[in-house]
């Protein structure tokens, strides 16, 4: 057997022996009575890269500004030959009550090396705050560690399907697990969240007087996405189809141009990649009755929806406050989940990607 891999110097707080973790946490709070521990949830981030730990610590620091939680950061190194677990504890504090009170969330970080049955779930889930729900962010593609014992503990799963190089098999694995768990956990896909405010803006635009006429005459939908955000664009397209009742035609829906069928006409979808860093920078729906154009300009905190119909035009601004992963997660945790609807959309997305093989 080889020894556990050398780890880079990690800024994760105090390293503590695993057996003393609870005791050391207690001491952490007793050492400063001015700090109030707050926790409304367990929030775990799982990654199979040690390098992610420090970035995730920053992420937790941001998320806990709004969502007090017990944070668990996990870096699993299944390829290490020797089984070992190292743990660190720290706290993230924010001033509250006009600066009079320091509200803190505790963070436990684990580096779990080696492979042994139940190693991750047995170790990590012993440190959950018992009565509070568990939000679990799985970073990267699913590995052998994604198994029923693990997801049986999860109340809310966070993923970012946009970061998967080959999303189709991953989405299939996700749906299988969700069905296997009988829908016991909800799913928050950050890629789906990236287009949340575009969806809200689009829905708001079609709530305008006269918008029904635009909808009836639509012939083309163009979506412009930033590098690495093709899946987000496809999700937005699938949502538009779901909302309008348009049916995907057979053929090559996985291409960047395809047609869908409305009751009395065909609608063409066009996807193009832009240099804009935003997930989706432009959505244009056009046809015989006018159109709707959504633009999200760099530096703007708003999505601009412009309706044009019969020579007249109007604009609606929709706030779009989230860009970074921390902002996206914070936004997600504020909201409820409609996971059955997500999977319904996903079925169309899968067809747009080329369908699961089994």
């Amino acid at each position, binding site marked *: 057997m080889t020894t556990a891999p050398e780890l880079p110097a990690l800024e994760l707080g105090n390293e503590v022996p695993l057996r003393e973790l609870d005791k050391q946490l*207690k001491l952490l709070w007793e050492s400063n009575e001015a700090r109030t521990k707050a926790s409304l949830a367990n929030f775990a981030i799982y990654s199979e890269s040690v390098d992610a730990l420090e970035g995730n610590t920053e992420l937790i620091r941001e998320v806990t500004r709004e969502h007090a939680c017990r944070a668990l950061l996990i870096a699993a190194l299944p390829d290490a030959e020797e089984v070992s677990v190292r743990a660190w504890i720290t706290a993230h504090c924010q001033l509250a009550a006009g600066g009079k009170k320091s509200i803190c969330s505790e963070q436990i970080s684990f580096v779990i090396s080696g492979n042994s049955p*139940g190693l991750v779930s047995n170790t990590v889930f012993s440190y959950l705050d018992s009565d*509070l*729900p568990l939000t679990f962010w799985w970073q990267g593609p699913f590995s052998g560690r994604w198994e029923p014992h693990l997801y049986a503990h999860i109340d809310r799963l966070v993923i970012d399907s946009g970061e998967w190089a080959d999303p189709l098999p991953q989405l299939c694995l996700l749906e299988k697990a969700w069905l296997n768990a009988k829908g016991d956990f909800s799913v928050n896909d950050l890629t789906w969240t990236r287009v949340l405010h575009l969806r809200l803006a689009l829905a708001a635009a079609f709530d305008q007087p006269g918008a029904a006429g635009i909808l009836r005459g639509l012939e083309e939908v163009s979506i412009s996405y930033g590098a690495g955000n093709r899946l987000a664009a496809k999700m937005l397209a699938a949502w538009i189809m779901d909302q309008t009742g348009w049916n995907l035609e057979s053929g090559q829906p996985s291409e960047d141009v395809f047609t869908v069928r409305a009751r009395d006409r065909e609608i063409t979808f066009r996807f193009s990649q832009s240099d804009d860093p935003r997930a989706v920078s432009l959505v244009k729906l056009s046809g015989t009755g006018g159109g709707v154009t959504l633009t999200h300009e760099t530096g703007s905190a708003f999505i601009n929806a412009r309706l044009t119909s019969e020579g007249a035009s109007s604009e609606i601004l929709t706030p779009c406050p989230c860009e970074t992963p921390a902002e996206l997660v914070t936004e997600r945790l504020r909201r*409820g989940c409609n996971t059955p609807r997500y999977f319904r959309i996903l079925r169309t997305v899968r067809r747009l990607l080329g369908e699961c093989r089994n």
Partner: protein
Amino acid sequence: MVIFGASGDLTSRKLVPALYNIAADGELPPTLKVVGFARREKSHESFRTELEEMNKKVSRQGHDDRLWASFSQSIFYHRSEFEDAEGYQRLAELLDGLDAQGAGGNRLFYLSTSPDYFPIVLEQLKAAGLHKAADGKWARVVIEKPFGTDLETAQTLNRAVHDTFDERDTYRIDHYLGKETAQNIMVLRFANAIFEPIWNSRYIDHVQISCAENLGMEGGRGGYYDKAGCLRDMVQNHLLQLLSLVAMEPPTDLSADGVRDEKVKVFRSLRHFRDSADVAANVIRAQYTEGTVNGKPAVGFRQEDRINPESMTEAYVALKISIDTWRWEGVPFYLRMGKQLPKKTTEISIHFKRPPHVLFNKGTEDDSANVLVIRIQPDEGISLRIQSKIPGPAARTERVKMDFHYSTSFGKASPEAYERLLLDAMSGDATLFARGDEVEHAWRYIDVIENAWHAESGTPPMCHYPAGSWGPPEADELLRRDGREWRRL
């Protein structure tokens, strides 16, 4: 106070540190003398030195050299075989001598030997006349667990005890009852008007009592454990005692017998399993297999030191208990205890019935039931899980908890269970000690299970779980078939 078996771990790790901490609190009777009775050759001084070393490591309030110097002068060592009558005569002389120096004449005999020696020590105490105190004084006996290994041996031991001491002078120790949180169960229930009206089958769906240990058979414990198993080692005493405190009716007063009478009624109301099939349906036994605990590889139970490789002793047990009373009709009590689980914790959780699915949880199967958790150890305290509206325009709810921690709510740390129990035994309060009939009723219930496990045919199966997991799938199924699940600890 005479401790029989004084060279054992209990004396140095628990009893003497407990006495030291009572002294640190200023509550130790100044005339108390402690005599360690054991077979090994030792001087008073070497005995004190050994105890001092351990006290430095384990004392709850730390170790003060000046206090120890004073306290340790009250500690003596007496070498004798347990069967040696002459040794008891010399003990009597030693005690008389200490009385002459102002010890006071009361006698507390603490039986911390192997249980095989209990009857012998009792017999010898009687033969030496040590069981009777002088006029106006008392002589009491404290007996460590295990109090028998089944009903028959418990009855035999009870007879041996009663041949020497009256029941009122007998203190069967169950250290769980000395824990603050166990004592607080009665306070929670009967000193707060909001709980007792809902403490019944109308509002409570079920109760779970869980005791998890993240250790295996370290320290040569396998030899004892392979004979006992966790049903006898933990459930018969600790967990059933906790159950009785949760399930009992309000006592008429807080006297020892007032409380113990009500606990006995609970034991008498436990519905006994009918046969092996009934045991198989309601009791899951298991052994751990190889796995990972606290990030370290762990061997299976049968590979442990001093465990028979073909052992059929359980290291885990989960059972569904029914109590036939008006209060608890239809409310199952699920108990589980296991070795090599992911963490060390003991708690009681009271699971209330779900609110009707008409408003906030319409059309969902959400986990909205209120749960009251009494944490026995560690992090002693109480929490109540409730549903709360998530701030924002939508009527969405999320579970939150109200939490009370002993460690932060009160200015000082809770005393160790043995501190409270030793003080109670000295002051003659047997409320937190098991009475003879309690022990026998508990064994009567447990024997049915043990008999089914050791029957020649129709024996319920032995299940398995990887070390470091939360027990066998069969234990999960025990609750799942009732539409319930174990609480996440």
